[in-house]
């Protein structure tokens, strides 16, 4: 898949994370929308269809798992790949997120140089 066809939604309450993602995605000319909580993300998904959603697990209000359930229930962005990201993890978190319904796992700190290849591999 072509890089320009990637459209990404980042749901994270950390402003630095949103800012960094914006810089990386701008550099690679990838379409990115950032929101800071699950409610805003659900609103956005009602009328938009990104093909990758990067979802922080610990959000104010609905957390990442709850948001994923809501999305599935309301059949929002059914084709999108959903990637869990978190700074709150142990050695077992990857296993837990993957068996919890996520398509990918990006522990923080994220690797700014590795994100784009990772996302491309994820949707191809």
């Amino acid at each position: 898949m072509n890089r320009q066809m990637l459209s990404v939604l980042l749901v994270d309450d950390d402003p630095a994370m949103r800012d960094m993602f914006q810089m990386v995605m701008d550099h690679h000319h990838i379409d990115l929308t950032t929101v800071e909580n699950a409610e805003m993300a659900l609103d956005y998904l009602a009328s938009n269809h990104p093909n990758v959603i990067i979802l922080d697990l610990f959000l104010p209000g609905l957390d990442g798992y709850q948001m994923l359930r809501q999305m599935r229930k309301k059949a929002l962005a059914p084709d999108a790949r959903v990637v869990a990201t978190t700074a709150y993890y142990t050695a077992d978190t990857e296993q837990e997120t993957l068996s919890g319904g996520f398509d990918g796992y990006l522990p923080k700190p994220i690797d700014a140089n590795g994100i784009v290849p990772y996302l491309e591999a994820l949707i191809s």
Partner: protein
Amino acid sequence: MTIPAKEPLTRALEAVPQANPIRGILLWFAPRSQNRDERFRESTVRVIIALVLAVMSLSFAISLFIYQDPWGLISFPTMNLVVLVFVVAAGVTVTRGNLDLAGWLIVIGSFAGVTMTHYILRSAAGDENNSAFISIPMFMFISLAATVLLQRRLIMLISIITVLAFGISEFLLSVDPSQANPMQIAGVVSFGVLLLVEGIILQTVRYEFDSRFEALDDAIRQEELAREQAETDRKRAEEADKAKSQFLANMSHELRTPLNAIIGYSDILVGGMAGELAPQPTRLLGNIQSNSRRLLSLINDVLDLSKIEAGRIEVFNAPLQPRKLITDTVESLRALAIEKSIALNVTISDDVPEVILSDGRKIAQILTNLVSNAVKFTSKGSVDVDVTADSAQWHIVVRDTGSGIPEQAMAYIFEPFRQADSTDARSHKGTGLGLAIVKALAESLNGEIEVNSIPNQGSTFRVSLPRAIPTEVGSVAPAANTSEAM
């Protein structure tokens, strides 16, 4: 207080269904008292009431309908009725919870019965001496019964009453002492003495019995107290452990969030995503990057270890290919060896099974820690990874030609925050947690680790893991086959 051994009644009750009316009768026999000593006395009283009730009813029926004994103030049917009245009264009393009175009622009822029987037998018999032999055991039996029916301090009193009752029944016979032969008087007196001696013996035995019982009771109570204390201590320690793990988990989250920004922004700068940089700032940023990554691995190790120490490590067993896992893991570490110009070799024996049931991530972590450790402590030569297998286990052996581990350090090499040479800690930039984590991980996989080392020649770490072959070779790994370990 709990009763250690299961009482026969408890077993009987378990066998009877809830709705069965027999259950109600059985339940009546269960002692209500909480005190150990009293429970014993109470169940004896309840059982004796039931027994006497049955025997006396039968005896009453036999004396009336079979022997057709004549009614009279002192006769067998009357005697049976008197005993029955006392025993029924005792039954009512014990049901109402007055154990002492119930015991007394049984004893007094028995006295009345035995005294009357003695009198009847003595007056009916021509040979007066012989009939005394029949009633004497009955008098003695009352003293014996009193030892379990009444409090111990009353036993001597009962014996004296027994002697008196015996005397009175003899007196009631209105034998003229002047006409009695000396043998007869001697017999009566010696029976009285016999009853008194019996009382003394019974009381001594009961005191001895009780004091042993109390000692036992005390020991049990002490043991229970100790057990409760241990339980409380364990719970408290567990809570503290949980709190510690939770604190560390929260801490690492709080630390990783700013670290994410530091690492992320320096990656962006170094990657030229915010414009080209001059060589000098790039070099400085590289230092920021490598140091923040070190900080990150420290945070990760602390968290892993705290989770391991709290016993909350989870094992995800799945079929895996050990050859591929080992080769891939070692390859990912090759850059470290190249950087230090040392060889990194992998040899996998043909005995190693193609597929093994285990937790691949944990094995990879064990190998990563061991190999990066070996590389860290080796300045020239090689690091060799040998994988072998026997019928029960498979072994991952990591051998280096490094500085080795001093003799005195072998004892604590697997303890957290300890390195073989503490002055080395800075130059080797380690957290001192790697081997502690390796050991805990190996144990979580039911494996073990051992180390051999010769200073200045090198060290050999050998991890042995169970050779668990999945039942369906090549089957799809279950998503989350969790099992609690440690």
